[in-house]
């Protein structure tokens, strides 16, 4: 029997149908006035109908419209946890998720968009895995399942037993988004069940099926083997890059830029000014970055500290890109949006991405 938390953001997605591009803050009230209808009940229902292992699940559910109202009378065993008022808020999400964690849930299912994912990250971090039912207006974070049916499959797989992998939570600036500008930064990571596809036995049969964690270790081995003395390495955000510093036994700011030199960290969570100071001091510099999420941006999303000025100074040939093979499979190309078209054009063209130990992929950088 698995104890699984269930939490719904009842207003998620309501801004979409009325063209409001999100319901962060108090925008949802405007959405309601404009006639927006809740969409999360339908999304949750799709998941509940598809769940195959309902006998093996005991739900711990947020109260009222945040969960309990939507699951009752559907044949599931559950208890309610927490309290909410008439209007719900991000704080309710965070408080109830923390309470669920204290009650030792093994998995948390939540329904919402990028904003909800950020609240869940704030509340539970990497403590427990999550399954995210996509129902927001903005869902740029790769933590979300493809649809409620896929989310149900992830829950079933988790109940039967599976490992987990870390997926990105992005912070999209909603004001900019309404103006048609995609301004995102990497906010954090949540763990999700690693749903391995059921593979048919083919003629060869032996598909090399590495986990993302194993793949990252291979990448780290390759990068470290090729690291040289007297070079300053600017280490970009993300877990793939962090695996490299972990292997070097060095601390790393997960979402920021750190600098290492001769096996020592010489810069921590650097901004542009801090990086430029280091560039004045060190002659040989390399940048190690990983593409963000499903969009494939290597510059301009999640690492804006690496400004066009810095990228130009370091040079294209000194940029090392690392990414798991699985992440690259989903990317038609890599992208850059540094804010300077000349630098974007300089970066365009074919490049090599380190995807394993002694394994690289030649792919294209487009703008």
């Amino acid at each position: 029997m698995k104890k699984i938390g269930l939490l719904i953001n009842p207003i998620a997605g309501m801004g979409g149908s009325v063209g409001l591009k999100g319901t962060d803050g108090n925008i949802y009230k405007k959405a309601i006035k404009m006639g927006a209808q809740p969409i999360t009940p339908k999304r949750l229902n799709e998941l509940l109908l598809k769940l195959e292992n309902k006998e093996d699940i005991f739900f711990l559910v947020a109260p009222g419209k945040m969960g309990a109202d939507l699951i009752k009378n559907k044949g599931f065993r559950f208890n309610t946890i927490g309290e909410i008022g008439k209007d719900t808020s991000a704080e309710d999400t965070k408080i109830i998720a923390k309470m669920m964690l204290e009650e030792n849930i093994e998995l948390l299912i939540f329904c919402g968009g990028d904003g909800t994912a950020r609240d869940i990250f704030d509340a539970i971090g990497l403590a427990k895995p999550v399954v995210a039912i996509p129902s927001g207006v903005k869902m740029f974070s790769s933590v979300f399942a493809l649809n409620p049916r896929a989310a149900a499959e992830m829950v079933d797989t988790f109940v039967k037993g599976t490992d987990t992998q870390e997926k990105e939570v992005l912070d999209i600036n909603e004001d900019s988004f309404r103006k048609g500008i995609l301004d995102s930064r990497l906010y954090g990571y949540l763990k999700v069940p690693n749903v391995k596809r059921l593979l048919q036995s083919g003629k060869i049969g032996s598909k090399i099926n590495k986990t993302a964690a194993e793949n990252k270790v291979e990448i780290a081995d390759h990068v470290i083997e090729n690291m040289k003395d007297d070079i300053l390495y600017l280490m970009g955000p993300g877990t793939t890059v962090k695996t490299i510093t972990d292997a070097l036994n060095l601390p790393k700011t997960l979402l920021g830029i750190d600098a290492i030199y001769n096996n020592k960290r010489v810069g921590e969570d650097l901004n542009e000014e801090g990086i430029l100071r280091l560039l004045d001091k060190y002659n040989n510099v390399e940048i190690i970055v990983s593409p963000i999420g499903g969009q494939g941006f290597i510059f301009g999303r999640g690492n804006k500290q690496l400004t066009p000025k810095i990228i130009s100074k370091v040079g294209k040939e000194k940029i090392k890109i690392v990414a798991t093979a699985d992440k690259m499979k989903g990317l038609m190309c890599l992208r850059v949006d540094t804010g300077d078209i000349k630098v974007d054009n300089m970066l365009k063209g074919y490049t090599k991405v380190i995807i394993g130990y002694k394994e690289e992929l030649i792919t294209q950088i487009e703008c």
Partner: protein
Amino acid sequence: MRIRLDKNEMFKPPPKEIIDPVKESIENINRYTPQVKVEELIGLISDYTKVPQDSIILSSASDILIKEFIYLFTRNRQIIIADPTFILITNTAQKTSSPLLKIKLREPEFKISLEQFGDEISKPTLIVFDNPNNPTGSLLLNKKDVKTVLENENVIFLIDEAYFEFSKISYANLLNDFPNLAILRTLSKSFGLAGSGIGYILCGDAIKKKFIGLEIMLPYPSVVAAINALQNLEYMKKYINEIEKEKKRIITSVSKMGIMVFPSYTNFILMKTGIQNISENLVKLGIYVHDVSEQLGSEYIRVTVGTEKENDYFLSYIEQLTKS
């Protein structure tokens, strides 16, 4: 009903002219394969390919030849392969200690341009491409580009032409000019001899010398099957015509369903269905297609062209899935 459209096999057994001698050969299963029969087979391959007998390496299945080739020619060389490619090529390349460079194929063309190589082919390199490519069905490089690559003496280039009889595109006529070229063929696909496993390499002396000492005894029934297949080419040609006809019909039908299909020079079709985990959904209906989720994503499938009845069955269920 259970149908297999996952292994690019011929959908029916070869004709009586091939099966009967194989049955007779079983009577002599206590004996090693007579050398004279092996030589007869090499002679027939030479006639079929228009390549001299001493430029042919014969082996039990092209899978073994791919592995041997990669292991023999990666010492102090990097390997370049396409991504995706025939999974055996990837798996074998990953098992060597040589640096591996994969060239990402982008849909919808799934082609390789010389620009993608950069200056990599000026270094000692083994290139292994399947042309047509599996699982995309595309032709990766044109003849002019193949020649440009081969002009780099540091390069050894193995081209897997397993589906040559379907594509009718071969670079075997470049063998005289380029000793660094090798062509791999099989009788498993268009000749319908998947179960007998006969493959061969066409190459010059320098490459062939490396295989000395690696010769293996081919099973007698397999040799008999191959000899009779090459003496009865008409059934193979007829099969290819049937495939082409059915391939067109499948492409037309699935395109109307909103499924994206890619040009195929083989006996299979790559489809982008827009349905996640499509392969698993089809297995539940008894339809086995090749799952390419590891290589391209779970909405893609590689479907072997089957019999008219099998294809109808596949089409009816894929249509249901697209509607649901």
